[in-house]
């Protein structure tokens, strides 16, 4: 009695995300809090819902508990469906034994049966570490119109940035004739956003062939796409305009949060027609005390603010004590900041406790050399003692975790 789905989304929730250091020590990357009340995965999931895609597989094998609990039955994203909905897909054992996911392509390969249940014509492959809003349905229309085997979303970058990306060289019609991974001398500026639509029948063929090749890394970028290109499949570029950010490093993660405070950044978080959904707690309204100054900042439910806030993002349930000053920082859920603390250019993860008078981070202008400066990071649940000083670039491990 199952009905077919035109397109199924497979979200690569990825590995450890080690360039986020202490932030991912106990949390899968897509589950990291972002933007005051979201987690990274809320962006691709909400994009799916808003694009009318109601069947999403989330491929994960690393620290899935938080992600699992967070996604739950999918209700916050309207993905609690009778047929379809969101499913977490970890590796599993068969009568022939079991394998961990060897690469992005292998992760999809191992879940061919999941996909085939819905008899889709197309499969959308997404990753879990990008912040953007995108209508995948429009991309699908483009894919169909072009009659492509694969369509890859592409962002126009500057020529100098291009050497940090996977670059797609395409003809005037958008048909790709070459891939270059982080080219020293880029020939074009079409950077791959890691968002693919495949005609399922084609993808299945190449996944199967790739799996049979013991030398393959079983990776989309390294193996599947080049193999398709080499075989002469029609692969096209889908130009995307708008805000897109990879949040795979501490710096880019911090920047992406700061971007939200900039009214000129075209993410449009508040657009009622393209809401970003998230799972919420049941919290009081935010309360602002008697003697505070809050400038160019974002504050969420359940915060109690008695101190000053400049250019910062407070996630829900944060307490900020009297006399404390927070500047250009990201303060995640339920962080408790005591009195007279100074916090600058820092990321403070969920449930951390910053005791009275602690000093965390520094402004770049207060640093002696550019090398001295960097974002200070306090791990989940860590305690910074009263009066303790945490320098710029320093990282404090989460409670129960290892220092670096």
């Amino acid at each position, binding site marked *: 009695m199952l009905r077919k789905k035109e397109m199924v989304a497979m979200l690569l929730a990825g590995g450890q995300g080690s360039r986020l250091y202490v932030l991912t020590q106990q949390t899968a990357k897509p589950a990291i809090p972002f933007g005051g009340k979201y987690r990274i995965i809320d962006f691709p999931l909400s994009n799916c819902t808003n694009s009318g895609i109601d069947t999403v597989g989330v491929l994960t094998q690393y620290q899935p508990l938080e992600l699992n609990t967070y996604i739950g039955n999918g209700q916050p994203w309207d993905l609690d469906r009778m047929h379809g909905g969101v499913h977490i897909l970890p590796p599993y054992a068969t009568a022939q034994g079991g394998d961990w996911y060897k690469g992005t392509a292998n992760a999809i390969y191992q879940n061919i049966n999941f996909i085939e249940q819905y008899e889709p014509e197309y499969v959308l492959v997404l990753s879990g570490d990008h912040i953007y809003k995108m209508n995948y349905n429009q991309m699908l229309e483009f894919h169909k119109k072009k009659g492509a085997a694969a369509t890859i979303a592409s962002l126009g970058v500057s020529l100098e940035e291009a050497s940090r990306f996977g670059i797609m060289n395409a003809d005037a019609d958008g048909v790709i004739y070459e891939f270059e991974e982080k080219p020293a001398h880029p020939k074009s500026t079409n950077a791959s956003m890691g968002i693919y639509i495949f005609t399922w029948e084609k993808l299945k063929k190449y996944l199967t062939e790739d799996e049979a090749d013991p030398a393959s890394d079983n990776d989309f970028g390294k193996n599947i796409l080049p193999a398709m290109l080499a075989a002469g499949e029609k692969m096209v570029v889908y130009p995307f305009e708008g805000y897109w950010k990879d949040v795979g490093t501490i710096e880019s993660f911090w920047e992406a949060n700061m971007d939200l405070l900039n009214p000129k950044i075209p993410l449009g978080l508040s657009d009622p027609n393209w809401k970003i959904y998230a799972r919420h707690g049941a919290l009081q*309204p935010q309360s602002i005390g008697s003697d505070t100054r809050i400038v160019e900042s974002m*504050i969420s439910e359940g915060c109690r603010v008695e101190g000053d806030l400049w250019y910062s993002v407070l996630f829900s349930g944060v307490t900020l004590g009297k006399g404390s000053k927070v500047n250009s920082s990201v303060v995640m859920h339920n962080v408790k900041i005591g009195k007279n603390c100074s916090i600058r250019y820092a990321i403070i993860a969920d449930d951390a406790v910053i005791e009275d008078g602690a000093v965390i981070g520094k402004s770049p202008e207060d640093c002696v050399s550019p090398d001295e400066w960097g974002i200070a990071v306090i791990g989940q649940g860590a305690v910074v003692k009263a009066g303790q000083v945490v320098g710029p670039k320093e990282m404090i491990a989460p409670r129960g975790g290892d220092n670096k």
Partner: protein
Amino acid sequence: MKAFGIIFSDSYSTDDRHELIRHRSASALPVACRYRAIDFTLSGLVNADVREIYLLTKRYYGTLLDHLGNGKDWDLDRKSGGIKLLTPYSHLDAAAPDMMSGKLDALRTIIPFIKEAKGDYVILGQGNLIANLDFNAVLKQHVESGADLTIPYAYMEDPGERSLVVSFDKEGVLTDVKLGGSGKQDTALNCYVMHKDFLLAFLAQANLYDWHDLNRNLIVRYMGRIRICGYRHEGYAAICNTVPQYFRANMDMLDAKARDELFPEDRPVLTRVQDTVPTFYRFDAQVTDSLLADGCDVDGTVKGSLIFRNVTIEEGAVVENCVLMQNTHIGQGAVLKNVICDKNVTVGAGVTLAGSEKYPYVLTKGTEV
């Protein structure tokens, strides 16, 4: 000791001059920046693991239905039980009394549902009570005290002429009731806890004698003849039967103690999830002593006010001692003092509005000034 709940969407004793509930159920009154009045009673029941709730509606309950949706946000979208709507004309037999006229009449129309309810005890609640009652404790006391009827009450300031002021003897048995009073008074919270069989017997009696008023017949008539006990609720409580009461209840929320009593961590108050973004404070924002919901955009001055979801306050505007409901827009340089803006109100640039602290100026839904 399983209980079920019956919630009246309206108080049946509100002030006719209450503009805020002219086109919505009293239960649907927006309060405390992000809630509707019914959230408190509904969450109280859910927190006491009561998952069989009947909601008796009267008129203009559309907003209330929109708020409740499919009940998911309270985890009340259950296969059996959950929340059940009893709306006018939904189950009425031609011979049944009118649900509109009084609580007792409304109850008499739903006797078949009470009979089929699975719980042994019934909690009658009222959707416009602003209090986080611990219904588990009320039930426990009801059973242990051997009472026929338990009435939760609280020590409240100026309960107002439509409230029932209650007195008890040393053993906690009800000895006197009167309507209203000024100063601090032990005031009934319009909730009743009793055994299902007791309620059914009482309703049969009410039917026989054609009684209509719940308080008058259940409490005044039976006082001294049955064992009516009080349950003292120690936390915050307010009833919003009039506009000044409503205004005061909201302003009370600026007090952290009242707020902590109303929102204890172990009995969270659940409400409809609206997926609003966090609130933005712009360069000229000056916010002090206020409560704000998510989704606002503030570039003006806000003092001692409650700001609901998706309110915009432009540069240079001053908002003092106000309640601004969802989607209020305050233009540049406008000045508001002691004002309640119902939903979707727009105040133009430079407009000055001031109400009395006791009886604030109310702009009804959708007004543009």
